[in-house]
């Protein structure tokens, strides 16, 4: 499975950002991205607190305030379905169901192979191509059942070219 981030790699991320307090969000976002499980472990949060000379509670304040952070392990790919009203009226509920069937899990769950987590999100700024799913940095719009099967299989295969081609941007 995925390789765990080492303490040295965490320190490297901090070093590249500089250890000023205003870099806290960026550092945590990078750590989460590199984690392989889309979350920030306590051990890493402790290192960040130490290096930025912050109490651990301040780091947790940030980790719990912002929706993009998770302190619980998630799948390698987090699939987020927009449920804000412009997407709701273009039937995002049906898209959630299709993903649930395709992945064999319910919303808010992770597949047993730790590859996918399915979640809701607010508007991701792609309302003109609703219904929309965001997977990592990529946005997939005008979703249909066929498109969803295709996208999921591309991610299962780890076909980066296909993943990029299928994305709207």
């Amino acid at each position, binding site marked *: 499975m995925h390789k765990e981030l080492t303490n040295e790699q965490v320190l490297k991320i901090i070093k590249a950002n500089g250890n000023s*307090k205003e870099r806290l*969000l*960026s550092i945590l976002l990078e750590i989460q991205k590199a984690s392989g499980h889309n979350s920030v472990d306590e051990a890493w949060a402790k290192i960040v607190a130490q290096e930025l000379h912050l109490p651990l509670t301040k780091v947790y304040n940030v980790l719990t305030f912002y*929706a993009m952070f998770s302190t619980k392990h998630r799948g390698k790919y987090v699939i987020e379905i927009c449920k*804000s*009203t412009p997407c*709701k009226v273009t039937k995002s509920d049906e898209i959630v169901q299709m993903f649930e069937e395709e992945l064999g899990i319910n919303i808010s769950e992770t597949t047993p192979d730790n590859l996918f987590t399915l979640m809701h999100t607010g508007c991701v*700024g792609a*309302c*003109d191509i609703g219904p929309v799913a965001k997977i990592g940095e990529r946005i997939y719009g005008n979703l249909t059942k066929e498109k969803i099967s295709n996208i999921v299989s591309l991610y299962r295969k780890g076909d980066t070219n296909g993943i990029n081609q299928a994305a709207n941007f």
Partner: protein
Amino acid sequence: MALTKQLISKNCGKIKPESIDGYIQSGGYEGLKKALTMQPKEIIAEVKAAKLLGRGGAAYPVGAKWEHLLEIPHSPKFIVCNADEGEPGTFKDKILLSQDPLRVIEGMTIAAHVFGSHDAYIYIRGEYLAIQKVFQQAIDNAIAEGYLGNRILGTDFTFNIHITSGAGAYVCGENSALLNSIEGKPGYPRIKPPHLAEVGLFSMPTLVNNVESFATIPTIVLDGGNQYANYGTADSGGTKLICLSGLVVNQGVYEIPFGITLRDIIYNPEIGGGIANGKKLKFFHLGGQSGPCGIPEQLDTPYCYAALRSAGLSVGSGAVVILDESVCVVDYLKGVTEFFIHESCGKCTPCREGNQKVYAILCKLSDGTATTQDFKLLKRLITTMTAASFCGLGQSATIALATCLKHFSAEIEDHLHKKCPAGVCFQEQERAAI
């Protein structure tokens, strides 16, 4: 005659976004060159003449904001660009950031010249991670070509732009919460006063403007404020990027001059092109989730700040969401309220608890258990939340609800009698009864 205009959006989709050459060839950086020959007061006079109202949603006059900050004696002054774009239904800043980032950079650089600033922060929402990279590339190219960084265009003016990423919190679009977030803290709004012009980022005087507001500055400086203002109406200068989404034929971003009607926006083939799937318009939601809803009877209202305001509507962020007859108002409002429950930062009670209570009543309406008592409570919640919430989020969370109660009171009251005219609610109960 064409209804749309191409002032701010003229490069979008037409040039290589991060390329200085492409930008220069299409007239880029002429505004900055002219600005560097002008005094700060002269530039502000043009911005005032342009009647530019803040494009982030609150419509505060940009010229007046700049004038106030100029008078503040302390320095350094920081420039902050609000690229949090969290209002659902809004995706126009994204177009500028990803397709013409140098226009935003040029606008920020002109502002820095006005205020003698050396540093700016652009706070780009975390959902636009891919766009952050394009924007950084544009910054790097501008530095390499002498348009940014040390000794800009051979003068002794030095100015840098730093990108800060959001991490998924709508409230961070509120300008004081935004500054807290840039400082690496949770994005709770600050108590005001002190005004951000006095005590802003790192406690220094700070200018916060929206992406589209900054993108407009080069055009205003180059063409003159009066010429820009003339595209619009008496109160609303220039053009606006609007975002069409929902159940409309042509979804997307359009640049329109202020003053064309809502009917033009929704039905003209050049813009909305009418309602999708041959259905009938039921209502439209303007300015984001925090904006008001309007009905077909209001279609002849000109799209500008004053006329919309007198009709109980507003420009807000520029979002225009189209809803047809298949949409149930109660069900729609549930969606709106869920958003605010999720995005409330929890700092104050009226917003944190109020949105939950509103949602609970809407759920009771949609499952047929609401009473007239609940209905009255709904109205009281609107008054309380609007008056007593700490920041704009809670204060405006019930605007859509309040306007729908006005326009659709019969449909909402029908739900007290287990009737849903759009046929969305009570479906399961009906099926169970068969």
